[in-house]
């Protein structure tokens, strides 16, 4: 609690030292993409993330993608999108920078076997000791990628001629990272 108070009263630029692993029960990895007149979204259940000496590395198993409709899920796993049979894991790695509550990670993301630079931006909270005595850091991050740069070119024209699915996909991660005991 005292650490959180400190971060609110002065600008903190040091990133948490040591090794921190995601508490996946209290974390989430999701995506959103404009589709027709609304936003379509989903999440992945099976993922991990580690912050080690300022480097955040994470991966997500695409087979664990959660959608409300099994045929749509199958379409996203197919070669037209993630090609989960050949490329089952999405990966990210990058260097964390902190400016007070603001977090920024310059890194690379690998989807469908294609690696591209990506900058994740968001907020950071903590370190703070939780009610069980563990020390936690919270990261809330997002970035927008052009899916066509990762070989995902599917689309369908609307009656007005516009494509149904946006190329821009927002990736979101809310991570609770727990300090590993020294």
């Amino acid at each position: 609690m005292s650490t959180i108070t400190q971060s609110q009263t002065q600008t903190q630029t040091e990133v948490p030292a040591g090794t921190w692993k995601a508490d996946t029960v209290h974390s989430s990895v999701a995506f959103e993409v404009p589709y027709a007149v609304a936003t379509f979204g989903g999440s992945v259940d099976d993922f991990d993330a580690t912050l080690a000496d300022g480097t955040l590395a994470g991966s997500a198993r695409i087979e664990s993608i959660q959608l409300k409709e099994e045929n749509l899920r199958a379409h996203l796993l197919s070669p037209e999108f993630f090609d989960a049979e050949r490329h089952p894991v999405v990966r990210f790695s990058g260097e964390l920078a902190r400016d007070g509550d603001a977090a920024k990670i310059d890194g690379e993301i690998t989807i469908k076997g294609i690696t591209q630079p990506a900058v994740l931006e968001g907020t950071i909270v903590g370190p703070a000791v939780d009610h069980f005595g563990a020390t936690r850091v919270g990261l809330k991050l997002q970035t927008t990628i052009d899916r066509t740069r990762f070989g995902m070119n599917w689309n369908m024209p609307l009656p007005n001629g516009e494509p149904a699915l946006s190329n821009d996909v927002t990736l979101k991660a809310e991570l609770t990272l727990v300090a590993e005991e020294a």
Partner: protein
Amino acid sequence: MRVLAISGSLRSGSNSTALLRALREEAPEGVEIVLWNGLKAIPPYDEDDDGLDAPASVTALRELVRGVDAVFIATPEYNSSVPGALKNALDWASRPLATNVFRNKPVAVISSSAGAFGGVWAAAELRKVLGAMGARVTDVELSVGHASAVVSDDVRESLRAGLDVLLAEVAPAFAAAV
């Protein structure tokens, strides 16, 4: 390695079937081209007839696709699109959609026509259909214009090149060896 060859045409003198016979002749050692002749026996798609009691002809097609390493389809073009019989067979094969036998299956599509354009629109639509089914649609592009039952040496060479692309999709090491 087994490749199922599907002709979208039923007539005995079909140019599409002739292309697949030539493909079979051009196949390298170790590659078996299985020419399917069950298209005419596939009934019109009716979900009421599907499930555990699916027609035997449909079950046979599904098992055939499930058991091969890849599928090579030659289609004619009817009214700028895929022949109904072929589309109907694929509709049967695509059920249940999430787990259908074409999912992740490497597929090559070629086309032919009596006209100059070689059935390019039928091939494009067929690739779209197969992509929606979850197949691994390869970049093989061969549309034979002014087609006849006699397959030229140039077309045979293109067929062999198309087969190489398909085999590389199945197993890169195997394709490099043949």
